[in-house]
C-alpha cells in the first residue's frame, strides 16, 4: 500500500427521481482511496454503498461532483473504457459460456493476443484453484465456485481497481469465512486496490485496511478499523461499529457533569454546553460503590466467556459492562446490588450527535 491516491470522489451527489419524490442516494461524498489498499464501504441498507460503487464503475453518472482515477477525470467515461472491474453480488456470470470463457471475456474484449488470453486465463484458474472446472458451464458450479469464477473474471484484465458489492452475502457462514481469507490473499497477491461493500461490521473490521462508514448518503467517518472503533466521530459510528454506552451531560473543563451530579473525566473537553461521550462495554470496570459512579446491578446476561452486566445510574441511565464470566461468578454479583463504575484510561470518547 502506498499513499498514492487511486480513486478520488469529489463532492459527489447522486439523486434519483425528480421533485418531492427525489432520493439523494449520495449527498456530497468526498473520499480518497489509496493505491493497493483494501477499502471497505460499510453502512446500513439503503445508505448509498452500491450507488457509489456503480458511479466508480461507470454504470451511472453522478448528478454532481467528479470522480478521478489516478488523477484523471473519469466522471463521464463509459464503463468499458475504465480500467475498473466489478464482482457483482449476483455474480452475473455468462450462462452461455464456460468457466474459462467467462474468465477470458475481458481479455478478449481488450483485444489481447490469443496466446496471452490463454496464459492469463490459465493463471487465473490456478489463482482461484478452479483448473479442474475450466470447461464446465457456470450453472454446474456451487455458489462458492461461482464466486471464485466471478473474482477470476474480474481480476483477469488486471484492473487498477476491483469493486466488490457484498460478494459474500449469498454464501453460508463457513464458506463466507473461507472466502474472506481467500479475498484478502488475492488482494495481497495481486496488489490491486479493492473497494469492498458490506453491511457486516465484523467482515469490515477483519478485512479492511480502511473503512468508510456511511449513513443516509453521507460518509460519516473514514479510518482504520482500530481508529474507528476507538475514536468514533459521532453517535452513529459509535453505535454502528461494535456496542457502546452513551453518557450525556454538561461540558465542564476536562469533565462531563452527568444528570446525577457526578463527574466523569473527559480529557480535553472544553467547558460550555452539552456533550455526549461513548464508552465501550469492555472498558467499564466494577469497583466498590464509594470508588466510582454509583450504580445498581440490573440484568446479567451470560454469553459464555463474557457476561453482560446491565447497570443503572442514579438517574436511570443504563450502562452495559462486559465482564469476563469467572469474574462475575467470584464477585458474586446479584441483581439490585449497589456497585461503583470506573472507566479504563482513554476509554471515554467525546462523540458528536
Amino acid at each position: 500500500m502506498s499513499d498514492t491516491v487511486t480513486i478520488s470522489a469529489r463532492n459527489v451527489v447522486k439523486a434519483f427521481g425528480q421533485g418531492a419524490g427525489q432520493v439523494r442516494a449520495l449527498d456530497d461524498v468526498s473520499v480518497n482511496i489509496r493505491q493497493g489498499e483494501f477499502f471497505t464501504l460499510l453502512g446500513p441498507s439503503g445508505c448509498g454503498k452500491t450507488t457509489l460503487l456503480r458511479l466508480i464503475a461507470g454504470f451511472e453518472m453522478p448528478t454532481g461532483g467528479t470522480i478521478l482515477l489516478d488523477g484523471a477525470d473519469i466522471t463521464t467515461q463509459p464503463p468499458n473504457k475504465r480500467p475498473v472491474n466489478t464482482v457483482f453480488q449476483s455474480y452475473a456470470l455468462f450462462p452461455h459460456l464456460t468457466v474459462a470463457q467467462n474468465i477470458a471475456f475481458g481479455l478478449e474484449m481488450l483485444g489481447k493476443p490469443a496466446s496471452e488470453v490463454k496464459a492469463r486465463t490459465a493463471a487465473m484458474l490456478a489463482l482461484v484453484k478452479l483448473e479442474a472446472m475450466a470447461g464446465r458451464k457456470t450453472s454446474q458450479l456451487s455458489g462458492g465456485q461461482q464466486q471464485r469464477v466471478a473474482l477470476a473474471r474480474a481480476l483477469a484484465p488486471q484492473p487498477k481497481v476491483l469493486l466488490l458489492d457484498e460478494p459474500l452475502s449469498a454464501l453460508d457462514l463457513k464458506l463466507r469465512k473461507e472466502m474472506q481469507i481467500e479475498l484478502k490473499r488475492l488482494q495481497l497477491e495481486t496488489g490491486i486496490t479493492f473497494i469492498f461493500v458490506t453491511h457486516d461490521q465484523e467482515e469490515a473490521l477483519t478485512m479492511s485496511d480502511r473503512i468508510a462508514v456511511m449513513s443516509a448518503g453521507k460518509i460519516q467517518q473514514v479510518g482504520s478499523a482500530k481508529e474507528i472503533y476507538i475514536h468514533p466521530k459521532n453517535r452513529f459510528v459509535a453505535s454502528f461499529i461494535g456496542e457502546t454506552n452513551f453518557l450525556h451531560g454538561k461540558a465542564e473543563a476536562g469533565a462531563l457533569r452527568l444528570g446525577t451530579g457526578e463527574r466523569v473525566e473527559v480529557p480535553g473537553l472544553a467547558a460550555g454546553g452539552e456533550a455526549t461521550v461513548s464508552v465501550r462495554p469492555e472498558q467499564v470496570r466494577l469497583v466498590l460503590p464509594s470508588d466510582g459512579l454509583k450504580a445498581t446491578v440490573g440484568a446479567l446476561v451470560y454469553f459464555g466467556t463474557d457476561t453482560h452486566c446491565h447497570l443503572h445510574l442514579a438517574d436511570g441511565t443504563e450502562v452495559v459492562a462486559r465482564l469476563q464470566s469467572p469474574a462475575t461468578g467470584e464477585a458474586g454479583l446479584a441483581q439490585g446490588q449497589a456497585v461503583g463504575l470506573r472507566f479504563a484510561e482513554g476509554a471515554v470518547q467525546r462523540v458528536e450527535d
Partner: protein
Amino acid sequence: MAERGFQISRLPGFATVAIGAFVLLYLPILTLVVYSFNASNSVAVWGGFSLHWYADAWANEDVKAATVRSLVIGVSAAFLSTILATLAALGTTRRRAFKGQTLIYVVINQPLMVPEIVTAVALMIFFGIIKVATGYQGLGYLIAAHTAFCLPFAYLPIRARLESMDLALETAAADLYASPWQTFRRVTLPLLAPGIMAGAMLAFVISLDDVVITEFVKSGGQDTLPTYMLGQLRRSFTPEVNAISTMLLAVTVVLLTAFFLLTRKKD
C-alpha cells in the same frame, strides 16, 4: 396444513370435463389422419389401408406448386417478421421507457386484435391500388401481408426472453470492456437466440396456416396449400385433402414442439 388453496383440479367432475374436451379437440383430427390412409375414394367409408393419397398429392403439380409457394411465403415472412420483432423487442425493453411506448406495443400487436377479415379486406383494397399503380403482381404482397400478421407472434416470445434476462449480464459485459455492439453480439444475442428461434417458428406456423388474408390478397395462380385445399373442398372432396392436411399437421406439430422446448424455463 389446515387449509389448501383453491385448486380447480379438485373440483368434482374435473376429470370427466377434461377428458371430454380432449376427445372433442382431438377426435376429429385423429379421424382426419386415419382417413388420409383410406384406400377408398370416400372420406366417410373405410376401404382398407393405403398410402396412395399421399402419392397422388405428391404427384399433383398444383399441390407441389402450392407447397413451394407456402414455404417461400412462410420462410420469408418468418424471417422478416422475426428481424422486425427482434428490433422492436430490443427497442421496447432495452432502453429507457419513453412516451408512446404503450402505443408502439398496441401497434405491434394490432393483428391479434383487429378481426382478420377486416385486415384482409383492407389489404386487398390497399394492395389493389398498388397493383394498378405499379403493375407488380408477384408474391411480394403475400409476403408483406404475412410478415405483418406474423409480427406479434414473433415479438411475444422474444420480448418474454429479453424481459427474463438478467440485466446485470449486459452490465457485466460493459464492465469487462465490451462496447455496446460487442455486448449485443457476445452476450445479448446468444442468450436471446432461443427466443428468436421460437419466434421464427411460431411465425412460420402462423403463416403456413393462414387462409383468410391469403385468399383476399393473392392474385390468380398464387394458391398456397391452405387456399388450394379450400378450392378443392368446393369441387371434389377426396382423401387427398386429408393427406395434405396430415402432412401440414405433422410439420406444425414438429415446429410447435420445438417452440415449447425452446421457450421452456430451464432448471
